[in-house]
């Protein structure tokens, strides 16, 4: 399943997509949990009893601001979360 967490508002569309099929058998040892400087990801058991990662509830309404520090304007050449996620399960829509 591709889970899209986020929102669209007047300033744009801000979604973090997690491809849970790639997430189930994570080859990166859940590096995203520590890779994100703000700790925005957490483990969860989905409806099909698979262990996957999701974006924490409290961050889902503020992605444009919470992720801003990791964007190129914040001095990062690449996003820490997508870099840590070597299976390529995490994507940003903006």
């Amino acid at each position, binding site marked *: *399943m*591709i*889970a*899209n*967490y*986020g*929102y*669209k*508002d*007047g300033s744009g*569309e801000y*979604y973090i997509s997690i491809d849970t099929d790639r997430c189930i058998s994570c080859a990166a040892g859940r590096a995203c949990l520590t890779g994100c400087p703000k700790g925005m990801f957490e483990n969860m058991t*989905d*409806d*099909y009893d698979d262990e996957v990662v999701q974006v924490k509830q409290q961050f*889902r*309404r503020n992605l444009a601001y919470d992720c801003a520090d990791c964007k190129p304007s914040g001095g990062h050449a690449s996003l820490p979360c997508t870099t840590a996620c070597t299976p390529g399960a995490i994507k940003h*829509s903006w």
Partner: protein
Amino acid sequence: MYTAGIDMGSRTVKVVIIDNDAAGAPSVKKTHLMFPGDVDGDAAADKAYDDALAAAGLRRDEVRAVFATGAGRKTVNFATDSVTEMSAGAKGVSYFFPSARTIVDVGAEEGRGVKTDGNGKAIDFAGNEKCAAGAGSFAEAMSRALQMTLTEFGEASLRSDKSIPMNAQCTVFAESEVVSLIHSATPKEDIAKAVLDAVASRVCAMVRRVGIDKDVVLIGGMVHNPGFVQALKSSMDVDEVKLPEIPEFVSALGCALLAAEARQ
């Protein structure tokens, strides 16, 4: 074997009890909808479930499993398990329309798009965590501004062929846009259409994230608004949007079906 599903929505509690031993396929034994008012989550779930059981002539111990879903699913303390709205909706829709691939779920406070695999399993979803402008409460607030009931509001929009864009993304600002339209003597039916076009446009933007594949099914309370259904069809550019018989109960039904599967 009886199983039940409870959908604890932000506005209403929906309960579905199914009889899994009916000939052919599981059949809906009873549906029950309750407006909890100022009753808290625990008590509302208890009361809605007890009322549904009484109407079905059943006792609690005759129901083998109860699954909960919805924004308040964690408050249903007697539920044997809980599932997300996406899984419940996908399962419920597959009961009515096995050919469904795209589900649009628009309730009171949230809208979401779900892609399914044809076997009642959600494979992709997108919602809007932030904004109420793509949900039923937005239409309700705007109908209040026009001093119309929701039914009148939906029917009025069908009498308009005007296309008035609403620019505001936020319910609060949109209401001021509606007030401006009222002051400029814009006919109510044109304003109603503008509002429902705006809701449909926001919902459609979410659904496009998961992709629009036929058949498209709309569930949730907004199914009862014919103006919204028309606006959604136009916005998604599809000829047909399938509507289940009991649109607001589909997720609760999905829960009951998932509960039955878990018990088998």
